[in-house]
C-alpha cells in the first residue's frame, strides 16, 4: 500500500529497558499496509532547531486494532521528546516507507540476527509474520549486558530466543556473530538488523556459507531461466541473508539522496527507497560508505 501522511494517536507508552521505549500508536493505514522491514518517518513536536523527521522501523503491526508499535532507544532531543508523550497525544507519521523483507515460500527455518535493540526493532515484525506463516524462527540477540536484553515475554512464544552478551552476564559471552555458526546449517534464510560492522561480518559469513557448508542455493532448480534482476523482490527472496540498514536520513522518499549506501554494482543505493532491506550481496561492504 502506498505511503501516506497522517497523524497517529499514542495509545500506550512504556520504558521496557533502561532508556528503551515501546510505544503503540493508532495508525490503521500503516497497520494494514505495511510489511516487516518497512519503516515510518515520524515528525515529533515543534522542537526549535530540529528540521528533520526521524525514521523508525515498524516494530509490530496489529491489523485488527489498527495499531503499530515503535521501539527505540533515547538518543537525543527528538527521541527524548517521544518519551514525554501521553495517551491521546498525536504525532505526524509518513509511511509505510521502504521495501520489506522477502521470505522464500520454501523456507522453513528462519534465522533472525539482531544487534542490540535497534536490531530487535528491525526484525520484530518479521518474527510475527514468520510464526503466523508456520515457519520456525530462531532469534539471536547480541547485547551489552543482561540489563539490555530484550524481554522474552515480548516475543511470540514460538520463537526460539538465544542471547549473547558482551560481559557474559546472560547467555554466551561474545557478540551475536559468535552465535551464528551454530545455526548456519539449520537456517534456510537469515535476516539481520543492527550496527553496520555487525552486518558486514554477517555478510562475509554468508558469502562463504555455500562453500563452507556445501549447501544448495535457493532457487537453483529454476536455474536455466533468466536471472532475476539484482535488487528485485524475486532476487532478494533467493538470497540467504537479507539485512535491514540504518542510515542518516533526510526526506525518506528518495528525493534528497542523503541516505545512500554503496551498492556492489558501484552505484549508490537509497536506504529509504531501494532499502532499508537489501540482500547482503547487493551491498559493497568494503566501500566504507
Amino acid at each position, binding site marked *: 500500500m502506498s505511503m501516506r501522511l497522517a497523524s497517529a494517536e499514542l495509545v*500506550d507508552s512504556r520504558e521496557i529497558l533502561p532508556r528503551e521505549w515501546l510505544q503503540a500508536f493508532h495508525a490503521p493505514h500503516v497497520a494494514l499496509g505495511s510489511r516487516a522491514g518497512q519503516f515510518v518517518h515520524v515528525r515529533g513536536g515543534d522542537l526549535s532547531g530540529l528540521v528533520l523527521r526521524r525514521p523508525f522501523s515498524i516494530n*509490530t503491526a496489529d491489523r485488527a486494532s489498527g495499531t503499530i508499535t515503535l521501539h527505540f532507544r533515547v538518543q537525543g532531543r527528538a527521541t527524548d521528546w517521544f518519551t514525554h508523550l501521553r495517551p491521546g497525544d498525536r504525532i505526524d507519521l509518513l509511511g509505510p516507507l521502504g521495501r520489506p523483507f522477502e521470505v522464500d515460500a520454501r523456507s522453513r527455518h528462519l534465522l533472525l540476527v539482531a544487534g542490540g535493540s535497534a536490531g530487535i526493532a528491525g526484525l520484530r515484525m518479521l518474527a510475527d509474520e514468520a510464526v503466523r506463516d508456520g515457519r520456525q524462527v530462531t532469534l539471536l540477540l547480541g547485547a551489552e549486558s543482561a540489563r539490555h536484553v530484550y524481554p522474552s515475554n515480548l516475543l511470540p512464544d514460538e520463537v526460539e530466543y538465544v542471547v549473547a552478551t558482551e560481559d557474559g552476564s546472560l547467555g554466551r559471552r561474545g557478540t551475536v556473530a559468535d552465535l551464528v555458526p551454530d545455526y548456519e546449517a539449520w537456517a534456510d534464510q537469515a535476516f539481520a538488523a543492527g550496527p553496520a560492522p555487525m552486518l558486514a561480518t554477517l555478510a562475509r559469513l554468508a558469502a562463504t556459507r555455500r562453500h563452507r557448508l556445501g549447501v544448495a542455493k535457493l532457487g537453483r532448480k529454476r536455474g536455466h531461466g533468466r536471472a532475476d534482476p539484482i535488487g528485485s523482490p524475486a532476487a532478494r527472496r533467493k538470497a540467504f541473508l537479507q539485512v535491514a540498514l540504518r542510515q542518516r536520513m533526510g*526526506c525518506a522518499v528518495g528525493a534528497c539522496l542523503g541516505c545512500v549506501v554503496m551498492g556492489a554494482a558501484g552505484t549508490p543505493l537509497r536506504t529509504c527507497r531501494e532499502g532499508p532491506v537489501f540482500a547482503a550481496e547487493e551491498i559493497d561492504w568494503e566501500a566504507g560508505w
Partner: protein
Amino acid sequence: MKAKKRVVTTGNRVAKRTPTVRRIRSAIVPARPRGATPAGGDGRSIVARDHEPDESAAVDLSVDLGRGLVLENPILVAAGTFGYGVEYDEVVEVERLGAVCTKGTTLKPRIGNRTPRVAETPGGLLNSIGLQNPGIDAVIDRYAPIWRGWRVPVIVNVAGESVGDYVEVVRRLDGVAGVAGIELNISCPNVGRGGVQFAVDPDAAGAVTAAVRRATELPLLVKLSPNVADVRPIARAVADAGADALTAINTLSGLAVAPDRDRPLLGNVYGGLSGPAIRPIALRVVFEVAQVVEIPVIAVGGVTELSDVLDYLAAGAVAVEVGTAIFADPTLPVRLVDELADECRRRGLGGCASLVGTALPKRPLPSSVKGVEYRP
C-alpha cells in the same frame, strides 16, 4: 501488541500543537475565516468567492519570470529537496506548485560523495550529497515524458565542472518537451571542481551565463552563492550576461563534527547549510541583489511558514523556493500557495505583486560588507 483503550485528553500540549491532519485537510478544502476583508476592500473578489467554490481562483498569484515562463503562483520547490518531482507524488499535489526545480543534474552520471551525507544542525541541515545524479541523458529519458503531462513547469537545475559541460547539458535540454526552464547551479559547495568557483567571481559567473545563454532559448535562472564577500557584482554580471532571473541563495559552507569527535562528521568533510538557520542571510542577499538588478529574484533559504514568504517578497523577491522544510512537512509548499492567496484576499489584493519590494530602500543602500565603507 494489544491496543489499550484510547484516551483522548484535551488538556495536553501536543494535541494542541500538532493538528497535522487538520492542516493537511485544510490545504485541500480551504476553510478560512471569512469576513476578514475590510469593508473598502476588493469587492470583486468577495463576489467571486461567493460563486466560486475554488477560492484560490479569486486571486491571481501568477509570476512572470521572463522569456515566456509564467508561474501560476510564486511557491517553488528548491533543487535537491524534491528529487525529480516524482518522489513525493503520493503525498504532495505536485501540480499545484508554482514550479519544480529538479535535483542538480550534470552531463555525466555522478555517484556523489561518501556518507554520511546529512547532519542536522541547530535550525538547519548540513548536506554534502555531491550532486549524485544519473546524468542528463537518463534524466531526459526517464522524467521528461512524465513532466510533459504536468501542468506545473519543471525547471532543470544544471551543474557542471566547466563551461563546456554546462553548455552541453543545456543544449541537450533545449527543445525537450516537459522542460520549462534552466536553473544554472554555479554555486554548489559540495563538489571539487566547478560548482562554487563560478559563483565567486563576477567574470566567471558572467562567462558561464553568457555561454549558456547562447546555447538555449529556454528561460534561464542562475543560482547565486552566499559564500562571497559581496554578491552584488556577481548578480550584475550574471544579469548582464543574459540571465532571465536570479535564485538566491544556495547553501552556506559549514562543518559538523562526528559524535566521537575524532573527525568531521560528513564523508565529504564540508557540507552546505540550509534551513531556517540561514534565512536572515538569504534575506540579506535577496535584499542586496534586488537593488542592483532589473530581472526577477527568486528567494530560497529556510522558508517554513507564510511570514517567511512575505518577508522575502518584501525584501524584493518575486517568488520563493521551499527546500529543507519539505523533509519535515511535505505538504508545506502547497499549503503556502493557499495561505498566500488567503493573505492577499484578506488584504483586499488581487495578487501578490504589490507585496514585492515593500522593504526595499528608496535609493540603493551600501553593501553589507563593511570593509569598503569603513575605510578611513
